[in-house]
């Protein structure tokens, strides 16, 4: 395959040129490549990004196929420009053993769109009581461990998990939430929780566990990864930890860096997400954190739900936003077009760094590298229409928003898996 006339997003900047692909690999990147090839993509006007990698999604299979399955989730992923996604283990049954992890990996291979990388549970049943079979899950393809959706409340067990997993070179991806402080809360605690009467979740509920897990990483001298950071104070904790040489990495999501909790005011349940969307100072701190490297990557926490899970009272609605098909456009609209970040920086947050954190292939366009590539028209404007999502989850609060940046081709292992 030969991609002609692309604007190629490289770590050091954008190169006008061509990309030659053979046998799943990028063999040459140059200003002009003149060879005969059966497949030529004229990428005039398009930017070539390293295939996006989302290290935090929920694909719901097995168990919740009415919300999403690996096939619909994979279609959604390639529609969103993603060539690899890492799916959280809170399925039914929980992916806490080699059988479920192996099932998810094989289903991903059968669907054969993007690369599905399972994440195994930290504890059996995500109950926070006993360690899951961490080594065996890794042997079946688990790329990390997490009890996402809940924290491992017992600090001693969390310490053991991080220590044990480090022997397999696996990271714990920490969902940070002190349940006793959450206390039934559904939105950020602040002016808007008071205004709506919806119960608030204080920042401290998140920060306390971020601090705890940083302390554990420091005392064990092992790496740790903090999931979906939403608070300004969490950003400070992580920034300070990095400055002290602690091996901590962190992610945030588009709904945290681009929005404030003002969007909850109409009680739309599609705004209900955990952790909750917070306030202006949090949004600004997350943007600064992305810019200065405190926040390593952007994930979607893609959490598809059925309409029945959302078309109820706010307190009863499920937490989560279906976000994998809009994440790239959010980055282009709210990070690139605002002049805040370069395209190379966006590629770093959405591909390079996730690959590094989880030791995955890809993450960069380079000769000899895997041919996972996304071609996008970054000037194309469109209106978000959930009915056009490939995901079964139409639960986005951003329906009707006008965004820039359209994925035109998603290429996985040198094969076109999505074409607009």
């Amino acid at each position, binding site marked *: 395959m030969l991609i002609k006339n692309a604007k190629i997003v490289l770590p050091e900047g954008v190169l006008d040129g061509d990309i030659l692909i053979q046998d799943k690999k990028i063999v040459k990147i140059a200003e002009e490549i003149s060879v005969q090839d059966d497949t030529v993509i004229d990428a005039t006007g398009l930017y070539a990004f390293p295939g996006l990698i989302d290290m935090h999604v929920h694909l719901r299979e097995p168990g919740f196929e009415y919300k999403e399955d690996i096939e619909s989730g994979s279609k959604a992923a390639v529609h969103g420009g993603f060539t690899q996604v890492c799916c959280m283990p809170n399925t039914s049954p929980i992916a806490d053993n080699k059988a479920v992890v192996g099932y998810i990996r094989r289903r991903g291979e059968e669907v054969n769109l993007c690369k599905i990388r399972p994440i195994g549970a930290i504890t059996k049943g995500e109950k926070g009581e006993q360690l899951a079979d961490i080594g065996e899950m890794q042997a079946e393809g688990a790329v990390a461990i997490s009890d996402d959706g809940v924290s491992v409340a017992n600090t001693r067990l969390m310490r053991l998990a991080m220590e044990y997993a480090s022997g397999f070179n696996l990271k714990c991806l920490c969902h940070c939430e002190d349940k006793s402080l959450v206390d039934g809360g559904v939105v950020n605690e*602040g002016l808007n929780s008071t205004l709506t*009467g919806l119960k608030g979740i204080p920042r401290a509920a998140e920060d306390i566990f971020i601090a705890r897990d940083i302390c554990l990483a420091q005392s064990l001298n092992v790496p740790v990864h903090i999931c979906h950071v939403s608070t300004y104070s969490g950003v400070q904790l992580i920034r300070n930890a990095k400055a002290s040489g602690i091996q901590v990495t962190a992610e945030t999501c588009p709904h945290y860096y681009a929005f404030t909790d003002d969007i909850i005011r109409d009680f739309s349940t599609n705004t209900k997400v955990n952790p909750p969307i917070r306030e202006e100072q949090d949004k600004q701190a997350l943007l600064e954190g992305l810019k200065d490297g405190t926040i390593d990557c952007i994930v979607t926490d893609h959490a598809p739900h059925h309409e029945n899970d959302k078309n109820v009272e706010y307190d009863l609605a499920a937490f989560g936003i279906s976000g994998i098909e809009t994440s790239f456009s959010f980055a282009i609209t709210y990070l690139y077009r605002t002049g805040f970040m370069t395209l190379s920086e966006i590629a770093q947050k959405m591909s390079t760094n996730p690959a590094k954190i989880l030791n995955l292939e890809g993450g960069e366009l380079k000769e000899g590298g895997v041919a996972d590539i996304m071609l996008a028209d970054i000037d194309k404007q469109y209106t978000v229409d959930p009915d056009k999502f490939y995901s079964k989850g139409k639960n986005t609060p951003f329906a009707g928003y006008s965004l820039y940046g359209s994925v035109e081709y998603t290429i996985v292992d040198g094969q076109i898996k999505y074409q607009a």
Partner: protein
Amino acid sequence: MLHRKDLLGLYDLTAEEIQSILTTAAQMKDKLRSGEKNLSFLKGKTATTLFYENSTRTRVSFELAVKYLGATCINIAAGTSSVKKGETLVDTGETLDAMKNDFIIMRHPMAGAPHFLSKHVTASVINGGDGRNEHPTQALLDMCTMAEKFGKIEGLKVAILGDISNSRVAKSNLFGLRKLGAEVRMYAPQTLIPKGIEKLGAKLCKSREEAVEGADVVMGLRIQLERQQAGSFPSLDEYAHFYGVNRKIFSLAKPNALIMHPGPVNRGVELTGSLIDDQSSVILDQVLSGVAVRMAILYLITQYRNRV
């Protein structure tokens, strides 16, 4: 004049709309006092009270308001209906719609439930209290009584003491009173003051004395035992000692000040018993205002629906 099909909260209403409800309510109150209870403004209409929480005075007040205006009233206590069988709120609402019901008067333990339902039904939704969010008709009846007693709301100093965090009455009063130009002072244990309430126009006070001094109205809010059990304050005795209103505190208010309470009162906790009994005429006037305000709202919404 009202410009909406639903009454969900006072946060959404304009000052003019609130004033128009109070003016109409005053007229309804006059009619009730003169024994006119066979009005026909809502003849041929049907209202359903859909209560997911226990209530006596609010529900009965709404039911009488509906009947005095000539409409038919159906009562659903959610505990005994198909809700218990797992029916969703949307399905319940759509069912009532299909039966050609005109008003859904709703109380629900979750904030925003009436707002959510209103998006799914053609009937008018009237909020009879939603979780910790709003209780607009209670605030309007409080304001109706204040307006009658003092002539106007503008410039009044209203002190609200008690569990602000969990009080939909406090919030609706805050929104309504501020829109009509009153000062709203609040005092409560630090654990029962919601974040950012001062940004919504409340004046947070540092003591009972500061809150009550020179006030025209002193409003006590019900303290629920569950709050004490949840650890928001140590005991009802300690609450009464530091946050209750007794005669000595109340003497700091203006000489003609009113004591109000949305009821039911914990005697000796929020207010001392003798203060309540002193003010019994006002508390009963609030009950009459309640019927009048609800009649006014039903009437004005019907007028709106006839216009559009």
